[in-house]
């Protein structure tokens, strides 16, 4: 019997090749995208699984008076808390101090470097592939590698006990290798060293006082710990020990499990969006299968009736349909797996990899995703196999055998609600895509307050092997550039737009007692010229007039406004806690967008530092006469090839660098676009099925109307009118939802477009055109049919 069912199913599928193919394509694409979304969600939620008891881990967050925050706290706080709080089992720092160069044989490597207390493993218990947690960070000259780094240097062998040369002088013994860490984990590690190593470093010692916050602090708490008490205790310690406790609003004890969303808040949007999108796509697929199945039913009422006459039970009919749909569903699951592994996953990694790291699929670890999709497949099969059959199986045999189904209750309403639902979702995604496209276009093309075209930007913090030699060659290059007629200006600076350090200092106006927190950077006298940032007040830096020792500064208008100044006459930028004279302010620049448009322009100060400080600037920016970029670029690259350094010189157009800020949001846009295309595509497949169903039902009506003289156009309208209205209703439901959702989301951008009606009009038009095309295909075909034929068959 089963063999027979399968045989008949295959024949049926083959017989309706077009419909089966439509179904298969829709299903495969849909399931592949669901699979991709689910997998990334799964990877995200399980990424921190290797960390046992992570719910007992907390980290500290410094909250500033203005509501800003950062995840660092002063160094000595850790010991104080561990020694005084009854709730804390262990604590550790985990911070960088410059990435260390490692040597193995001839080869040199640099990876992200973190320093931690030996108690690191008491807090995090991150499993080690090789080595012992107890002793891994005990020795001063030890180093733990991540699995990735270990593989890169040593291949598959166990490197524990071997030695790496660190920073040319240190003999670092490898004491452990971590188990692979998911890139979606809270941890981004390269190598981990004990921070006892830094205790010899005088600069480091100087920083480890109560006035510097540079290290995140983590604690492992008792399971029954009282976090409110801990917070009170920590804030008490702040009051007792901080050199100026009034600088901050307080410290917050944050659960480690929330750290990821705290670091990249948009993660929440992405994960939430992924779950919603996969749910919706799944829904659309199901509805679609239901619709397409119903559409084949008319032909089958007779088939079912004949089978019943021959003695088939209802169960037999249902089983037959389930098997037929099951074949479709499972073939498409297999196709979608292939699509997922070969197309979607690499694309996902290309899109989000830069921000979140690349993930890979490992069956031994990620089998729940496959199990999940198979379970969904089985449920879907049962649903789409049983539901339509139930409707048709009730048709009395005596009617069914004539192919009539007049007696079936006309639940057009039910099918219509499905269509409305499908198209609501599709139009929702299209609207979101249209609005997001506008926003990204706006951000990429907005007037940023500086010139980003024809500016070459190269990184010059290259870890020079011989700094003095490098400096003299670099100065020669600068002289050449300045003498070149195609070069308009040359600048070196610590930051360039899109790439400023998160380096903040609070300055005070002692007269008005206003404190303003400035973002701080260094630049030379060519910087504002190269970027064409207009000077609003005062003057630009001037190498002949400005004295480096006085640290003259230029602030932006936002900074001036924050102080409430109208002029900078006689003003100085003074530190809040210091008797220092402060910086002389030589000028005020117009506000420009030094960071992306998701963030507002805050007070910004540039401190003067001339071009000779090669090792302290990060960027060389050259404004070039249009058309001469390649020539100048070659000239600079050639010069850097002659300077020996550990890192290579890389050069970009400033415009590309600025646009790259939106890579993540571009990724989101791409995902939304793809989802929108998939949902509308699948919805139209279902629509196509339904209209062929309708056309078959009305074949006699169409024939009679044609005999009576109706034209093709009239028939097409007759068939499509209802569906167009349905799409209209869907649009009316979808628009307010899209408007609300996008309004909320755009609210998180400091600078955003305002949503206007025409965006919805575009979205509606797109949906309408696609729908009309789909409907038209079938409607015209039916309308063109010869009425003599259709009337004769009745």
């Amino acid at each position, binding site marked *: 019997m089963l063999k027979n069912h399968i045989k008949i199913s295959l024949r049926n599928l083959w*017989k309706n090749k077009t419909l089966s193919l439509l179904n298969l394509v829709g299903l495969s694409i849909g399931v592949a995208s669901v699979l991709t979304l689910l997998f990334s969600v799964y990877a995200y939620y399980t990424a921190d699984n290797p960390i046992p008891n992570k719910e007992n881990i907390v980290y500290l967050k410094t909250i500033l008076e203005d509501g800003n925050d950062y995840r660092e706290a002063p160094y000595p706080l850790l010991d104080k808390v561990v020694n005084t709080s009854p709730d804390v089992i262990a604590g550790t720092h985990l911070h960088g101090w410059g990435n260390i160069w490692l040597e193995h044989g001839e080869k040199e490597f640099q990876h992200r470097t973190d320093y931690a207390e030996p108690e690191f493993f008491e807090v995090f218990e991150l499993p080690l592939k090789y080595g012992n947690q107890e002793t891994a960070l005990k020795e001063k000259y030890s180093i733990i590698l991540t699995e990735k780094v270990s593989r890169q240097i040593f291949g598959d062998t166990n490197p524990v006990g071997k030695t790496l040369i660190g920073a040319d002088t240190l003999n670092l013994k490898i004491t452990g290798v971590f188990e692979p860490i998911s890139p979606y984990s809270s941890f981004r590690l390269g190598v981990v060293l004990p921070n006892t190593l830094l205790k010899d470093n005088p600069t480091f010692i100087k920083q480890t006082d109560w006035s510097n916050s540079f290290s995140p602090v983590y604690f492992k708490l008792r399971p029954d710990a009282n976090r409110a008490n801990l917070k009170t205790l920590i804030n008490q310690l702040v009051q007792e020990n901080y050199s100026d406790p009034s600088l901050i609003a307080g410290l917050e004890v944050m659960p480690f499990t929330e750290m990821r969303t705290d670091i990249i808040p948009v993660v929440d949007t992405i994960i939430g969006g992924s779950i919603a999108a996969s749910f919706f796509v799944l829904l659309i697929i199901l509805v679609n299968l239901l619709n397409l199945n119903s559409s084949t039913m008319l032909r089958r009422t*007779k088939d079912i009736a004949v089978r019943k006459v*021959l003695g088939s*039970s209802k169960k037999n009919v249902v089983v037959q349909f389930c098997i037929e749909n099951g074949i479709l569903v499972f073939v498409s699951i297999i196709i979608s797996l292939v699509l997922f592994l070969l197309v979607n996953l690499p694309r996902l990694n290309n899109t989000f990899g830069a921000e979140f790291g690349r993930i890979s699929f490992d069956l031994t670890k990620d089998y729940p995703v496959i199990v999940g999709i198979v379970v969904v497949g089985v449920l879907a099969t049962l649903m789409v196999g049983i539901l339509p059959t139930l409707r048709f199986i009730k048709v009395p045999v005596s009617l069914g*055998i004539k192919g009539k189904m007049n007696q079936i209750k006309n639940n057009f309403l039910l099918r219509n609600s499905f269509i409305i639902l499908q198209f609501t979702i599709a139009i929702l995604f299209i609207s979101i895509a249209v609005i997001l496209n506008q926003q990204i276009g706006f951000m990429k093309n907005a007037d940023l307050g500086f010139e980003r075209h024809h500016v070459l930007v190269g990184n010059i913090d290259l870890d020079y092997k011989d700094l003095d030699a490098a400096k003299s060659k670099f100065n020669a290059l600068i002289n050449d550039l300045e003498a070149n007629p195609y070069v308009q200006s040359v600048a070196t600076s610590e930051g360039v737009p899109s790439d400023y350090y998160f380096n903040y200092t609070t300055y005070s106006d002692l007269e008005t007692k206003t404190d303003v927190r400035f973002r701080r950077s260094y630049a030379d006298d060519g910087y504002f010229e190269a970027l064409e940032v207009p000077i609003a007040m005062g003057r630009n830096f001037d190498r002949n007039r400005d004295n480096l020792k006085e640290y003259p500064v230029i602030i932006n208008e936002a900074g001036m406004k924050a102080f409430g100044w109208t002029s900078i006459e006689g003003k100085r930028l003074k530190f809040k806690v210091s008797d220092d004279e402060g910086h002389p302010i030589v000028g005020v620049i117009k506000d420009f967008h030094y960071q992306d448009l998701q963030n507002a322009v805050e007070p910004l100060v540039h401190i003067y530092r001339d071009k000779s400080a090669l090792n302290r600037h990060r960027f060389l920016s050259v404004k070039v006469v249009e058309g001469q970029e390649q020539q100048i670029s070659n000239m600079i690259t050639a010069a850097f090839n002659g300077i020996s350094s550990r890192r290579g010189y890389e050069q970009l157009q400033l415009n590309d660098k600025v646009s790259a800020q939106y890579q993540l949001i571009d990724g989101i846009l791409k995902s939304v676009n793809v989802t929108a295309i998939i949902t509308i595509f699948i919805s139209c497949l279902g629509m196509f099925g339904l209209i062929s169903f309708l056309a078959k039902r009305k074949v006699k009506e169409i024939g009679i109307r044609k005999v009576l003289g109706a034209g093709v156009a009239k028939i097409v309208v007759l068939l499509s009118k209802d569906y167009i209205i349905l799409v209209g209703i869907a649009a009316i439901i979808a628009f307010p939802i899209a408007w609300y959702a996008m309004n909320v989301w755009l609210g998180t951008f400091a600078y955003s477009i305002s949503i206007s009606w025409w965006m919805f009009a575009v979205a509606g038009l797109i949906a309408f055109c696609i729908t009309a095309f789909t409907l038209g295909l079938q409607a015209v075909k039916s309308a063109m049919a010869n009425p003599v034929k259709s009337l004769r068959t009745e």
Partner: protein
Amino acid sequence: MLLQLNNIFKWVNSGGQRIFLLKDINLDVEEGEFISVMGPSGSGKSTLLNVIGMLDTFDEGEYNFLHECVHTLKEKHRANLYKEYIGFVFQSYHLLDDLTVQENLEMPLLYKKFKGSERKAMVADMLDRFNIVGKKDLFPVQLSGGQQQLVGVARALIANPKLILADEPTGNLNSQQSEEIMQLFKKLNEEDGVTIIQVTHSEKNAAYGSRIINLLDGRKV
């Protein structure tokens, strides 16, 4: 007695009026009879046949089939009853288009849960008896109307039913083909003792039967 209809009524309500499809039908059928049901279009011939075949229900009256009271049986039991004892032949053959001749013949046996080897033997026997061995792997569309109806009759016979219900079995056939089918029916009736009830418009075909029932507006005349 194979079956007995007592005072069978069937009606539909249309526009507040009750329209009778069958009106007070009384009919006794003995085993081995060959009955022809005649009457103009809309007189209730097919409805009567469907009621006898249990494909359709009736609103009033009693129906006994082999001493079972059909009107009191649940649908499932009714289905079992007709599955067991009745074979159907239709005007438009109603072969399953997706199945070959052989598979069409096998289908009723599948539903009756015969074993694979038994099915093969029965199908081979039937193919042989109807001289259609050469056509066994063809699909219905590849056959002529007469051949299709031959397969339809073979399918109705394969599970050895006591009763064959034929609704205008020759309606779609030319005269030569209908002659053949009627000869076949006659042979089945006389040699194998199969009871046959056929609906027909043709006096000539009706003459093959042992008894003629005339219907007019749902009434026996």
